[in-house]
């Protein structure tokens, strides 16, 4: 390279760097978001399934009801570091509050730093008691203990045989709590049952099916197959139909596909955790705090409630209108019907007085 060319290159490099430095310096001194408009950053831990979509739907409905702007975001996969980067970017962009799940304990220090910096935070779905913020979600251990007891009761007090328990990820702590609760419930209500697992049956539909297929071949005489994540009921139902098995199937989440399997009679029970409320309530709590001039929301626990849905039972939490199984399916398939289903309670019922429903944070896993 000759001297002239080298000097030209340096000039180009210098001009690029200089432009950057000028812009950055100008921004440091001049940029400050001081808008009155409330903007809520709502970050889920992934956006891969209907369950997350229903949470988003709750958040969108809340934002529309309260007249605030919502910024929805999520990492491509369950990746706490990417999730944190999104949350921090939203905070730096000037949002008024953040709602996000505590996917990892490693998020505790950064989220507490955000709270200390004056941006209110509400967590949902996945909890850490070490975050100084409210949590909206289910009571994990007791709910899944009840789930296990109901399965054992359905099988009969004297039932014997193998019950297989699977979950979609061995590295999410909340699923370990679900498994602990389920196994405790099965053992308490079905002392003759042999409980095996929890097995890691994966999240993606194809991997989940393959994992359950292998378990079915290894345990052809099992009396029940339980998947504590959303895709399991569908996989197990297909296997049951194609392989002529007689297991009892139960699992997590009242997605339209899971309810269809219950309706068809291949699955017995789907557990729901009011995901609409897990989207709605964090936005409501944040907006309430911000409009009250608070810089942080006091730590507390809002139980989003659960449903143990069978063909005969579609009980709803709080004072939500009782619905038949058929109506529940219609609600699950329609964003408008879902919003309308919760509207009465949120506007004039028990959920309107949501502050009286807040519990101490430590109640979440009791």
């Amino acid at each position, binding site marked *: 390279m000759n001297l002239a060319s080298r000097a030209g290159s340096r000039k180009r490099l210098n001009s690029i760097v200089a432009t950057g430095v000028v812009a950055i310096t100008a921004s440091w001194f001049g940029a400050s978001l001081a808008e009155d408009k409330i903007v809520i950053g709502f970050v889920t831990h992934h956006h891969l399934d209907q369950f997350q979509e229903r949470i988003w739907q709750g958040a969108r409905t809340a934002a529309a009801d309260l007249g605030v702007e919502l910024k*929805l975001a999520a990492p491509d996969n369950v990746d706490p570091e990417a999730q944190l980067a999104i949350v921090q970017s939203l905070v730096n962009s000037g949002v008024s509050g953040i709602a996000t799940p505590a996917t990892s304990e490693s998020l505790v220090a950064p989220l507490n730093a955000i709270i200390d910096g004056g941006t209110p935070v509400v967590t949902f779905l996945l909890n850490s008691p070490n975050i100084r913020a409210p949590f909206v979600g289910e009571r994990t251990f007791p709910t899944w203990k009840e789930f296990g007891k109901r399965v054992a009761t359905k099988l009969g007090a004297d039932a014997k045989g193998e019950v297989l328990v699977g979950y979609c990820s061995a590295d999410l702590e909340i699923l370990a709590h679900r498994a602990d609760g389920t196994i405790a419930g099965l053992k308490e209500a079905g002392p003759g049952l042999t409980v095996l697992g929890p097995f890691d049956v994966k999240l993606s539909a194809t991997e989940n099916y393959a994992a359950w297929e292998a378990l079915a071949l290894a345990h052809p005489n099992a009396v029940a197959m339980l998947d504590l994540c959303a895709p399991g009921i569908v996989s197990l139902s297909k296997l049951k139909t194609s392989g002529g098995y007689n297991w009892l199937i139960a699992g997590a989440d009242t997605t339209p596909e899971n309810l269809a399997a219950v309706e068809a009679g291949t699955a017995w029970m789907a557990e729901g955790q009011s995901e609409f409320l897990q989207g709605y309530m964090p936005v409501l709590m944040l907006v309430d705090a911000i409009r009250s001039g608070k810089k942080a929301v006091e730590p507390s626990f809002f139980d989003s409630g659960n449903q143990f849905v069978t063909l005969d039972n579609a009980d709803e939490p709080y004072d939500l209108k009782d619905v038949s199984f058929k109506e529940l399916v219609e609600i699950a398939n329609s964003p408008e019907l879902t919003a309308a289903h919760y509207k009465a309670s949120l506007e004039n019922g028990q959920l309107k007085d949501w502050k009286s429903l807040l519990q101490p944070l430590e109640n979440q896993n009791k």
Partner: protein
Amino acid sequence: MPDEIGVVAALVVLVLAVGVVQPNFLSANNLIQLVSNSAYFGVIALGMVFLLALGEIDLSVGWNFNFSAVLTAELMLFGVDPWIAAACGIGFGAALGLLNGVMTVALGLPSIIVTLGTLSVFQGLSLVVTKSRAIIPPDLSSSFFAVTNSRLFGIPFVVYGFVFAAIVLHLVFHKSRFGYRVQAIGSNAEAAKLAGIPINRTRVVALVLMGALCGLAGATFVGVRQAIDPTTGGEFLLVAIAAAVIGGTPVTGGMGTIVGALIGALIISTIRSGVIFLGVDARWSTFVTGAVILLAVAIDKALRVQRDRSRNRNREN
């Protein structure tokens, strides 16, 4: 013109493009956070440059990071001084790298095959140790946590650590015998062998270095975040490779750039943050991230082509 001019230009263009639309993106706090968030996978990307230049790869880096962090935190749970626990974590990462290296050489297999296996081994053992639960050091009063969470001139410790690691590794790559050997083997393994370069030893040392960097990142992570859970690190593999490759290290071996990998890591963090600032719909963000990475690589390539033409013209003159 330095080799890294293309990626530097791509980074500046990206930062300015987002900053023009959203001035808050250029705030000091956000830019510092961008670098800080890049540090963990970025340090791994720096080590990956050595392996790629050697014509090797380590697929187990994410879980090596996680397992080393888990060991560090577990030792703290057992009452070991956090500084000693962190040193053990780094050593443990290096030992896992040594395991990769010894198996690669002893079995005569490409490291991609060996580390494909150890990826699951490390993840599985880490899960067994953690029992699927997060590990939280019980006592945060040690100076280890104060140092790893400290700031100098408003810039976090991890940023200095990341830059310092890049400088040291840059010197190792370009100025040490080991660095020359890595590039020589990656360029032409047969010629390197005939020249008397110890190929197997160099491969093992490179994998140990990679493991030690995973351990360093893992131990630092425990200090900064004061916790490690079973999921963290699993997604680091692809971003670390992407950072090295975006930075200008070819997967074909023979050459590499540590500074490029550092810039590559910053480009990835900039894109991740940029799509949020620009309000890109979450469903589109994955596509946009990929498209912008392609754009950044294209800018780099265009500048390289221009530089090569310029060099050729100068030679002809």
